[in-house]
């Protein structure tokens, strides 16, 4: 049981406004990146878990997301442990 690196991706739910995504997309277009579409801006959270078995780690991080890291009303989240989906 060594250290596990968890990566959490929090994205605005489909159908929920994403003012930042919109703004970024527009700026990218004005900068000449015409090929870009469907820009969505979310959060990326990296954290280390000490002395946790891999099988419990997933559940723990999900708990963190549901309680704090994401707001279920407006956001979805995805978790990776040591680079592979959990």
């Amino acid at each position, binding site marked *: 049981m060594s250290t596990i690196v968890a990566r959490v991706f929090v994205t605005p739910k489909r159908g929920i406004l994403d003012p930042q995504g919109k703004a970024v997309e527009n700026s990218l277009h004005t900068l000449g990146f015409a090929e870009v579409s469907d820009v969505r801006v979310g959060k990326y959270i990296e954290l280390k878990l000490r002395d946790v078995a891999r099988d419990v780690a997933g559940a723990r991080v999900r708990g963190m997301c549901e309680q*704090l890291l994401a707001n279920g009303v407006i956001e979805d989240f995805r978790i990776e442990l040591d680079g592979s989906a959990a």
Partner: protein
Amino acid sequence: MRWGVVVFPGSNDDRDTLRMAERTLGDEAIALWHKDRDLHGVDCVLLPGGFSYGDYLRCGAMARFSPVMEAVGEHAKAGGLVLGICNGFQTLCEAGLLPGALIRNRGLRFVCDVATIRVETSDTPFTYGCRAGELLQLPIKHGEGCYVADEETLARLEADGQVVFRYADRAGRSVPEANPNGSLANVAGVCNPGRNVVGLMPHPEHAVDRLTAGEDGLKLFRSAQAWLGRRPSEARREATVVPGP
């Protein structure tokens, strides 16, 4: 009456709110420290504006877990009065005491201004003394005041008259140009199904003085005083009133 103003780390309208309750309203007002589980018997809890926990991650996301919020939740469940202003509104949404959420302003910038707010219903303790359709001039100052909720939720809020305040123009029309942050349906404030918990982005506590931003905000606090002091018969009558649209 007795007001309680919650102080989170990073709250910054708390002192103004306390002063308002004491000096302007002439009531008793106490600060409720975030680590304290006891509401000390206050009649109404005010969650003030500011940047609790720096607004890091999401506004109100961390404040919601303060010990004091458990007590606020119970107070609300028991029908006690709760008003969340700006960061307080965000915190109530994060805590699930109010529906929906507040995200980054459409313009992506902090906006400080005086906005025209239309009162949508007089059927809450904080609009008890207002007319539906009445216009208030209230300061706004926020970066994340864009109210969002999924379609069903929003439809339900409209149907049950839970939209308490809307941004409007001077003529009282809730048009897009009057919307400072992109809130859905120009929503500036909502209440819970029980109507005892209200949250809004504008700052009534900063509109209680002719010399600063006018006195329209007083109406909300005077309403709460009147509502608590109203005759039992009234109370009963109200209880049977079906919330109008």
